[in-house]
């Protein structure tokens, strides 16, 4: 990435986000990437006057990430999406769809975690 990616931990995330908000950054989105069978990266993208800023939060899959939606309401949608797709839980979501934003019962298995759920991959598609 062109811009520097600052690593954060669940503990420091809150402060960093609040700081971004204070500095007038616009929340762009979050991206979640599966690293290996246990951990995922959550990237936070911010923008100010077309300059991007990124944070990287690396957390284990079975741990809940702190939600930033109380600070940036706009994040509730993407956090719900990550809940749906990766099964990562977010604490303190402004509107918690509880893993029903996109998915029905039929696909309740964190489809984007391909490494851990590779054994059920066979049922995909038609």
């Amino acid at each position, binding site marked *: 990435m062109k811009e520097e990616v600052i690593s954060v931990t669940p503990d420091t995330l809150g402060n960093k986000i609040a700081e971004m908000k204070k500095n007038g950054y616009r929340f762009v989105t979050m991206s979640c990437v599966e690293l290996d069978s246990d951990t995922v990266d959550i990237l936070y993208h911010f923008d100010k006057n077309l300059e991007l800023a990124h944070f990287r939060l690396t957390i284990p899959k079975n741990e809940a990430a702190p939600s930033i939606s109380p600070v940036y309401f706009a994040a509730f949608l993407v956090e719900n999406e990550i809940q749906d797709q990766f099964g990562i839980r977010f604490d303190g979501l402004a509107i918690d*769809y*509880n893993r*029903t934003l996109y998915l*029905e019962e039929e696909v309740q298995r964190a489809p984007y975690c391909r490494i851990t759920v590779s054994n059920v991959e066979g049922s995909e598609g038609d």
Partner: protein
Amino acid sequence: MLNTLLFVLILGPFIAAALCFVVRIRHIRSFIVLAMACLLAAASLLLFVKGPFSHTPPSLLGIPTHWWILWGDDILLFTMLYYGFKHRHLLTKILVIFQIVCLDYFELFMVDHSKTFPLFVADNLSLIMVLIISIVGSLICVFAIPYMDKHEEKEGFQKSRQPKFFAFLVVIMGAMNGLVLSNNIIFMYMFFEVTTLGSFMLISYDRSEIALRNAVRALWMNCLAGAAFIVAMVCAYVTQGTVDAQKLIQAGHMGGIMLTPLALLCFAGLAKAAQIPFQSWLLGAMVAPTPTSALLHSSTMVKAGVYIALRFAPGYAGTFLSQCLAVYGAFTFLAASAMAVSQSNGKKILAYSTIGNLGLIFACAGINTPEAITAGILLIIFHAFSKALLFLCVGDIEQHIGSRDIEFMRGLYAKMPRTAIVALLGIITMMLPPFGVLLSKWMAIEAASKHLFVMVLLAVGSSLMVMYWARWAGILLSAPYGSQVTPERQGVLTRLPLLVLVGGAVVLSLCAPLLYSNLVAPILSAPSFSVRAGIFDNPTGAFLLYPVILVLGLGFICALYAARKARKARTSGPYLSGAQTKDPECFEGPMRKPVAVSSQIYYFESIFGEQRLTVWFNIFGGMFLALLIGGAL
């Protein structure tokens, strides 16, 4: 014969009341009420068959009638004073003391009781009133028998207060009969006051704080009407030297000086009929059990107000007072209709509708042409039946579903099909052709077409009225998809009054031409319509009653047949944007949760909100009243 009939009609209820009060056994009381109801109805019919009369009954128990009246009045007024003190209400006390002083002075020192004139005079208007009071009122009393048992059961009273309740219920009917038959306005006044006290007792029946407060409000407002009545009597006697109503009416033509008492009488009538600044007492009366409201609204009490206005209408024909009354009545019609739009409480809607319709009758009295008087009288008849019916329906519904809010009447057809249909018919007879209320409204509008302001007010008011009725009617039929209609069980004493009233409302509409030509036309100075083949016709317009009934009736039968046939059709849940769940009344909402659809009708709180409008309407109403009285002085 006449003596007996008058005795039964006027004093019969008083005796029945005394029996009710004394005999504390439920079944005997029920029997007394039932017997009294039958007797009243029969007597009124007999009286009706006898036709118009003027009559002076012999003195009762050898004491001159005017002594009875004086004592009666004093007992009444002191009772009211007692309640004024008991509830610590200053205004009531002042008004009652004023009345006592005036009345006693008037009766003891002013009136010359030696003048003889018929004490009871009945023309067709009185007879119609007697019929309505005795039949509709009796039906309400019958309905009250099972109703009150359930009511007390629900309220959990320690001791039954039914004796007193039924006593006053029947007393009011007797008083009303007396009022409409009296020719002596002192008699009228006494009966007028009996209804005041009776309504006070009935409204305060539950003895809850709100009931007492509303009862006291009703008391002082009606006392105000009584006070106006007394002043009117005094004025009339001072100017004309008589208390003969007929004479006073004729005297009206002589000009200005007679207007003051007539204006005051109209004022008394307006307050009694809860016209705009006084509407709060009638609305407050809603806290009482349903038979009370039904009785007060349909056949008695408020009808006393319009009766007085109509009775004295020839007296003020063509005067400023008359003009003013017309606009004022139309204004009330509009105002009450507007406020009814913001209501979801079924009884309140009915109350506002009553106020509105009474306003229309006042407007008719004010327009004071034969057409208008016809409209007014017919409206009294049809309104009494439909309104009593609707009140009883709401009462019955309330006892079943536990609410009088129309929002809770959604899907009533599925729960209580019979009552729902009866209520629907009641609503339809209130607003649609070919039924009587609309027929009279048509007459009123045609009669009002020369009065521009009246016309505009009526035009807007009647469409507002259509609005609040139509949605209620719709709600009764709306049933959740797939709900099964459960047959309804109803006691005979509940069903009978409902059926008779609904039958009356429908059949009387069919008989409107007969009613007109046999009853209304004879009292008019000039016939207002020519009636041929069920067509009301005059140069202004024509109402094709029978043809419309015929075609709509055929349509109704076809529609029923088609609806019956459509039972075999495939049913499907309501359209919910494709999101319905297995339960077709729910849709799948966010988070995959089923959400039950619900709908609310619009109350336009921001436009027609009761709180907002009441202030303004009261100011306007007060101004009209001031104009009415002031103009007459």
